[in-house]
């Protein structure tokens, strides 16, 4: 999962302090693994260095926690490209796809497009596995089937999410 992109996505809705970013991140994506402060500031400083975010005002008292960060135009472009780049179809997709869908909804982008490119990438991998299976011996077939069933599970989740996008958009907007 790309924490940098997740933070960019959250910043697209408006400038925030590091602390604020951590809170919103944990609320949406940190169920199993809340972000550490160090991780937030390290990521922000990398985004800053790459010109994807900029400082937007510092409150009196100094220290990194007083700085407000805003996404730059380059950051918006980078985020947009990431959202429609499919995740590498792995046996376990983890939470990257969920994060992308939520961030797309938050930023008013097409969550359907995120799901469409992912479906296409999954099906491409599933086709390769199916071809390998057809030309393979029993061991090949069983190994490919294992991967195929897992990828199919991702796709079933993807279709269910596609069917519930309106509902999810409402929940995200709350």
């Amino acid at each position, binding site marked *: 999962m790309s924490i940098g992109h997740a933070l960019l996505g959250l910043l697209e809705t408006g400038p925030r302090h590091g602390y604020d970013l951590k809170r919103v991140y944990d609320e949406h994506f940190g169920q199993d693994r809340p972000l550490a402060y160090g991780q937030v500031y390290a990521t922000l400083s990398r985004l800053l260095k790459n010109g994807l975010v900029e400082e937007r005002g510092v409150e009196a008292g100094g220290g990194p926690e007083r700085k407000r960060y805003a996404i730059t135009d380059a950051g918006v472009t980078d985020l947009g490209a990431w959202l429609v780049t499919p995740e590498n179809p792995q046996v376990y997709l983890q939470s990257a796809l969920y994060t992308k869908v939520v961030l797309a909804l938050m930023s008013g982008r097409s969550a359907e497009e995120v799901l469409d490119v992912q479906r296409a990438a999954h099906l491409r991998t599933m086709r390769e596995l199916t071809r390998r299976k057809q030309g393979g011996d029993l061991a090949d077939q069983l190994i490919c089937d294992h991967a195929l069933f897992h990828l*199919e599970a991702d796709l079933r989740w993807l279709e269910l999410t596609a069917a519930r996008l309106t509902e999810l958009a409402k929940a995200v907007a709350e």
Partner: protein
Amino acid sequence: MTPILSATDLRKTFGSTPALDGAGMSVAAGEVVAVMGPSGSGKSTLLHCLAGIVAPDSGSVVYAGRELSAMTDKERSALRRGAFGFVFQFGQLVPELSCLENVALPMRLGGTKRRVAEARAREWLDRLEVGEVGAKRPGEVSGGQGQRVAVARALVTAPKVVFADEPTGALDSLNGEQVMRLLVETARETGAAIVLVTHEARVAAYSDREVIVRDGRTRSPELVP
């Protein structure tokens, strides 16, 4: 590639329920295209329109350069019997006939003599690895065997396009795999295109590409970067 079959801007409403709302797709000769989408998305209606079983309210379906709606009923029937083959989820075999007679049926309807038709049917049953069920009736064979008989019947007339609507929907995983493998293998050998309606990704993975149907509209991933 020039499509052998193409549909443009299809609209179809059943009562007050729109099933297709501007759907379109095309199939090249010998291509296997999966039509995917959730239940009620319109994918079966799309298949029925492509196959000339259902007439769309508007839009066009063109097969080999000819508009389906411009054909007479008789021409469309001949097309469905000769150039098209069909495999459905179940219930497509005539229960009173033997499996061999079922496979021979499309040729018999087309005027082929019984002996010739049944010899060809026997070859096809062997090719689908169910040569042993020829004398049995559909009610006496397993689901997997029944679907292979159905595939044999769909391919026996050397169709240009096979329409398969959830062909493995009633089968367990292993039988489903075997039916898909045989369907795609034999279609590739004979050069038939397949329009494969399925909601299962593992079945769709046998295709060359997919068309997604949602709310009666189609989306092709090649249009997505």
